[in-house]
């Protein structure tokens, strides 16, 4: 860990590692009642080693964008390039996911969960044990390696999911509201861990969240969305080196940024609450 911390934006190369161009996702046939636009034409570039947060009201399409970037969903129009190559489906060697709900397999214990993920990726049998153990060490869950998911608390389950994503050793990690089901204190502590991780590993992270404070604390840039049909409204930069400390959490700098986010999002949230339709659930091919 360097003394001066790690600044995102000091890109490893001139080209962004993720490029999304005019991505749009809609369902149903236009003109018919079933037609829904989940995501309006949105563009985003993410540089290597950055942590970008996507934040916005429910149904604004931020999760859709994340899933499209990760190859779990197909856009209706537009394209996404990861490391210069177009995204046509999951890219397990380059992108790892952490989901909001627990996607740990309930019939496997912690270490088998991680080893199964590695097997899916295609890792050699001989390396499974070591890589799983290494990843559990990083998140501090090694002692629980033979526990079953139902024996773990919410925070612990998310740490295991994070370990699974880390074990896959991808350059990019996409996180869809990973801490939403946890209480605020746990969220804050885990947020600090993510920041430390970022400083050490220089991975690229795209993080979807509802929490204003979480977004400012973690991100190098925050993309705010409009109400549905959503698109990216503004991008705010947070100029603060990683790993971010508890002092930053209570600093005035963070407060100012948080207030700015609030201003941007307030009207959008109102609009979402007042709209008669309920946001449509995400669908996957």
């Amino acid at each position, binding site marked *: 860990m360097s003394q001066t911390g790690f600044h995102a934006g000091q890109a490893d190369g001139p080209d962004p590692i993720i490029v999304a161009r*005019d991505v749009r996702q809609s369902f149903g046939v236009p*003109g018919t009642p079933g037609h829904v636009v989940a995501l309006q034409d949105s563009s985003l570039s993410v540089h290597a080693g950055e942590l970008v947060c996507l934040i916005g009201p429910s149904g604004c399409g931020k999760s859709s964008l994340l899933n499209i970037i990760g190859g779990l969903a197909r856009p209706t129009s537009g394209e996404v390039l990861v490391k210069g190559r177009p995204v046509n489906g999951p890219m397990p060697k380059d992108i790892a996911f952490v989901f909001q709900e627990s996607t740990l397999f309930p019939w496997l214990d912690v270490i088998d969960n991680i080893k199964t993920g590695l097997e899916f990726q295609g890792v050699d049998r001989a390396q499974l044990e070591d890589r799983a153990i290494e990843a559990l060490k990083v998140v501090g869950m090694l002692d629980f390696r033979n526990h079953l998911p139902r024996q773990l608390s919410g925070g612990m389950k998310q740490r295991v999911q994070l370990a699974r994503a880390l074990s896959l050793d991808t350059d990019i990690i996409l996180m869809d509201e990973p801490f939403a089901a946890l209480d605020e204190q746990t969220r804050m502590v885990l947020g600090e861990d993510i920041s430390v991780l970022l400083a050490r590993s220089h991975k690229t992270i795209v993080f979807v969240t509802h929490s204003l404070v979480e977004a400012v604390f973690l991100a190098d840039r925050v993309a705010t969305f409009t109400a549905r049909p959503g698109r990216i*409204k503004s*991008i*705010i*930069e947070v100029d603060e080196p990683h790993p971010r400390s508890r002092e930053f959490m209570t600093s005035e700098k963070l407060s*100012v*940024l948080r207030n700015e986010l609030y201003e941007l999002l307030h009207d959008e949230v109102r609009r979402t609450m007042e709209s008669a339709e309920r946001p449509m659930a995400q669908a996957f091919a």
Partner: protein
Amino acid sequence: MTTTRTNIAPNDVGAVSGASRLRLTTRLQNSPAALRAGIILLALLGWEIAARLWGNPLFMAPPSDVAVAFVGLVGNGAVMLAVWNVLVACFLAFVLSVALGLLIGVPLGLNAFLRDALYPMVLLLYAVPQSPFLPLLTIAFGTGIEPKIAYGFTHGIFPIIVTVVGGVQNIDRRLVVAAQSMGASRAQILRRIVLPVLTQSLFSGMRLAMAAVVLGVMLAELFVSAGGVGYFTKMFSNRFEPENLFALLVMLALIAITLNESCRQVERHYTKWRENG
């Protein structure tokens, strides 16, 4: 400490490109009912052709013959009497099940001691397989309509007891506490809270009980071949008249479907206020 912000102007959102003609497959996809009807028609057609071409007339009858036989049976007084008795048996067994089921279930539900003592025995009885007891029916009840009512009753009473006891137990204690805090008497609590919840569970139980009663009555009918429907199934079998046999079974199946479906509708109607059904 300046913040850097970039605003992004909304793009012009044009119409989605692509053909908007609805193809036949899309139309079909939107109507499983049509697909279902089509499949049923195809199945009937296939049956008709298979029966006529390869079917042994001793065992198999094409749907057209069955339909004709059906009409014939409707005109046959003796057969219709037997079918009518099936309905009567179902109805009587059902009423008996509900009445005695409530008589046993309500006290068990309300009184914890009785429940802890007797309910396990009820459940044990419920778990006993009833079909080996068929021969016992004729010994005990003869060969009229009585064994069928009895057998329907023994099948139907248990779902009533189980759902009533379960329903009373599931009354949200908080509702009772809230009522008590407002000064409700025991009678008021019984009438205003217990009774509605009880009625709820009763309707669910009635649907299950009807299905069980129908099963019991049908089994008894088939077993007792001295009279009733079982007499005719035996006769049509012995005479190798598959079209009559099939028509009779279709008639019984329709009764079963109608009785079950009506109970389901009644249950749906009266349990609308439940949040999770």
